[in-house]
C-alpha cells in the first residue's frame, strides 16, 4: 500500500480533519451533533495515537485541524496535541464551550501555537443560554474565556446554533460578538442530526422567524463590514437546495471519533450499513482512499434520480446522506431538503407543523443513558403526515 498518495488518481486530498478528541462535555446542548451513543473516556485514543494521526493527516494534505469534541480541553493532553499541530504546520482550530478547565489551559494553548478559537454561545440572555446548555453559571465563564482569547491576540469566532429557543436573540448575538471582540460570528441554524433530530420539535423555528433572522444578518453584514464577518447557515428544512454536506462526501473532510473511528462526516454513523475503519487498523491515507464508508457516496456514481441527471450534482453532491436516510429512509436518496426531492413539500409542512406546536421539553445530551424519546420516523411520499 502506498502510505501517502491515495491510489485513485482523480481523488482530491482532504483539506480538513475534524478531531473529536473526546465526547466528554460539561454542557448538555439538546442539538449536539455528537451521536446518541457517546464514546466513554476509557475508549478514547491516547496521545501518541493522535500524534500519529495528525502526522498522517499533514502528509495526506490536510491543512486545517479542528480540535473538537465534546469539549476538547477536557483532554489532559490538549496542549501537547495542539503543539503537534503547530510543529506539523497544521492550522489548529479549538472548538470549545469555554467552560470547565478551558480558561486554565488557554495560555498554554496559545504558547503551543494555537491558531484560532471558536467559542460556542448558547444564548445572549444568561438564563436562556444556561437553560439551553444545561449548565448553571456557564455564561460568565464563557465571557471570561472570550476576554482572555482576545487579550492574547488570538482570533475569536463566536458560534451560535440557532433554534426556536434563541432565534429572537440573533441581533443580540451580533452585538455580543462585537462586544467580545470576535472577528467572526457563525449564525448557524440547527442541522437536524444526532441529538437535534431527536429534539427537532423542540428546536424548529417557523418560517417568518427564519426569514427575519436572515434579514437581520444581512443588514448587520453591511453595517459591520470590515469589523465582523458573519457566516450564516440557513436551516435545511426551509432551503431551496441542500448543502454540500462536508463539502461533498469524502471530498474535503475526515472526522476521527474519540475512539478512532474515521467518518466522512460527524453524523455518518447513523447510516448503519456503512463499514467504518479505525485509525488503529489502517493509515489515514488508506482510509481516505479505500474505506468502504468513504467510497460509498463519493462522487456521483451512487446517485439516483433526480440527482443523477441534475445540473447541480457536483455543486451540492446530492446534499446530506444522513438526512436522506433520516427523512427518506434511504441514504442514497436525494436529500429531502432539496426542492427537487419528491419529499420536499412534506419536509416544509413538517417544519411548519412542528414550529406551530408548543415545544416539548429538551432531551439533554448525556453519556451512557437511554434517550427517552424516539427519533422521528422517516417521511413517506404517499402517507399523510
Amino acid at each position, binding site marked *: 500500500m502506498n502510505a501517502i498518495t491515495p491510489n485513485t488518481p482523480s481523488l482530491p486530498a482532504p483539506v480538513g480533519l475534524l478531531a473529536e478528541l473526546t465526547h466528554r462535555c460539561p454542557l448538555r446542548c439538546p442539538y449536539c451533533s455528537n451521536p446518541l451513543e457517546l464514546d466513554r473516556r476509557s475508549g478514547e485514543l491516547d496521545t501518541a495515537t493522535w500524534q500519529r494521526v495528525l502526522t498522517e493527516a499533514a502528509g*495526506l494534505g490536510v*491543512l*486545517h485541524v479542528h480540535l473538537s469534541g465534546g469539549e476538547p480541553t477536557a483532554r489532559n493532553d490538549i496542549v501537547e496535541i495542539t503543539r503537534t499541530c503547530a510543529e506539523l*504546520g497544521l492550522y489548529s482550530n479549538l472548538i470549545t464551550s469555554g467552560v470547565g478547565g478551558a480558561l486554565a489551559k488557554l495560555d498554554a494553548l496559545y504558547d503551543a501555537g494555537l*491558531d*484560532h478559537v471558536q467559542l460556542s454561545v448558547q444564548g445572549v440572555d444568561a438564563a436562556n443560554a444556561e437553560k439551553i446548555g444545561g449548565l448553571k453559571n456557564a455564561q460568565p465563564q464563557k465571557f471570561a474565556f472570550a476576554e482572555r482569547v482576545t487579550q492574547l491576540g488570538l482570533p475569536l469566532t463566536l458560534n451560535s446554533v440557532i433554534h426556536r429557543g434563541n432565534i429572537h436573540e440573533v441581533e443580540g448575538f451580533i452585538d455580543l460578538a462585537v462586544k467580545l471582540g470576535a472577528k467572526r460570528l457563525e449564525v448557524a441554524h440547527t442541522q437536524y442530526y444526532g441529538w437535534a433530530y431527536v429534539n427537532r420539535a423542540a428546536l424548529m423555528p417557523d418560517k417568518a422567524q427564519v426569514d427575519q433572522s436572515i434579514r437581520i444578518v444581512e443588514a448587520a453584514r453591511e*453595517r459591520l*463590514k470590515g469589523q465582523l464577518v458573519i457566516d450564516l447557515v440557513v436551516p435545511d428544512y426551509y432551503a431551496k437546495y441542500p448543502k454540500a454536506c462536508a463539502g461533498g462526501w469524502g471530498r474535503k473532510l475526515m472526522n476521527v471519533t474519540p475512539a478512532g473511528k474515521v467518518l466522512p462526516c460527524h453524523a455518518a454513523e447513523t447510516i448503519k450499513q456503512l463499514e467504518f475503519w479505525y485509525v488503529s487498523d489502517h493509515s489515514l491515507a488508506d482510509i481516505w482512499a479505500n474505506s468502504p464508508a468513504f467510497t460509498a457516496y463519493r462522487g456521483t456514481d451512487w446517485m439516483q434520480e433526480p440527482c443523477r441527471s441534475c445540473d447541480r450534482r457536483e455543486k451540492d453532491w446530492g446534499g446530506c446522506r444522513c438526512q436522506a436516510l433520516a427523512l427518506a429512509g434511504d441514504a442514497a436518496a436525494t436529500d429531502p431538503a432539496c426542492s427537487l426531492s419528491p419529499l420536499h413539500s412534506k419536509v416544509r409542512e413538517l417544519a411548519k407543523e412542528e414550529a406551530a406546536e408548543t415545544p416539548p421539553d429538551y432531551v439533554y445530551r448525556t453519556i451512557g443513558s437511554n434517550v427517552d424519546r424516539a427519533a422521528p420516523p422517516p417521511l413517506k411520499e404517499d402517507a399523510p403526515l
Partner: protein
Amino acid sequence: MTAPFPTPKTDESQRLLSPEELEAALRDIGARRYHNLHPFHRLLHDGKLNKDQVRAWALNRYYYQAMIPVKDAAVLARMTDASLRRVWRQRIVDHDGDAPGDGGIERWLKLAEGVGFRRDYVESTQGILSATRFSVDAYVHFVKERSLLEAIASSLTEMFSPTIISERVAGMLKNYDFITKDTLAYFDKRLTQAPRDADFAIAYVKQHATTPELQRQAMDALTFKCNVLWTQLDALYFSYVAPGMTPPDAWIPGTGLVAEVAQAVGTGTIRSGDVPRLPRGVRLRHDEVRGQHVLLAPERTFDLDANAVAVLSLVDGQRSVRDIAGKLAETFAADRDVIEVDVLAMLNDLATKRVLER
C-alpha cells in the same frame, strides 16, 4: 404681504435697527435655529451614526448641493445691476466649476462615492426623501417669488457655516474610518468661499434693509432658510435613525452602492501609507501536496495565485502599502501607481474578510 413665520408685532419689532443691531439680530437667528443644533448633526459629528446613516445624509444632501446653482441663477436673473451680477455669478462658478470634473457639486459627488455610492445613482436623486425634495424646491421658489433683499438674506446661513464645517470635518475624520480627507474635499473649499459670500450678502442686507418692515423681511427670510436646512435633517432622523420609518421609494441601505471591491479601495481600512500585517491566526503557507501557496485563516483557506503570493510575501508588518507597490514595481518593471491600486484592492478585500490588519 404675509411673513412666512409671523412674529408678534411688538413695539420693539417695529423699531428701525441700526445696521449693527440688524446683523446681531440675524446672527441670533443662526445661534438658535442653524442646523448644527439638530440632533442628527450632533450624531453625525460625534461618530454616533452608522455607515448607512452617513450614506443617507450624503445622498439626500446631494440634491441640495445640486440645486444651489439653480437657486443662484434665479437670484441672478432678478439682478438688474451688472456689478451685483458679477459678484453673484461667482457662486455658480464655485458650484458648477469651469469644466467637467470641477466645482462643488463634483466634490459632493466624490463624497457620496467615498461612502460607497454609485455616481449615477446619486445623480438620479431617485432615492432621496420627499421631504428633502420639498424643502429644497421651496428654497428655489422662495428666491424667485420674494424680493431680491429676501432672496439675498436667505443665503445668510453661510455666516454660520464655517463653524459647522470645521466641527464636521474634524468629527467625521476622527470618528468614521471610512471617511478620508479626500472624501471631505468639498468642505475645504467652502471654508474660504462661504465667508466671502456671506460678507457680501450681509453688507447688502445691512445697506438695503432700511425700514423696520424690510428688516423684518430679511430676518424672516433667514429663519425660512434655517428651516429649509432643519427640515431636511428632521426627515433623515425620522427615516434612518428613529423611529426608522423610511417612506416608499426612498433609499434602502445596501442599494445604489458600487461593487464591493471598488468600495473597499475607496473607503477600506488599508490606505497607501499603512503598514499591513497578517494577524495571529492567519498564515501564508506552501502546500506541498497540492504544489501551491495558500493563506490559512480561521475556518477558511484562500488559494493564492502568483500575484497574490508576490504581494503577501512582502506583507511583513514593516513595509507600507506604498513600499510594497514600489518593490513590486521594481521586480516587474511596472508603474508603481498602477500596481498600488491593485495591491490596495487586494489588501482591502482581505481586510474586509478580517484576515489582514494594519
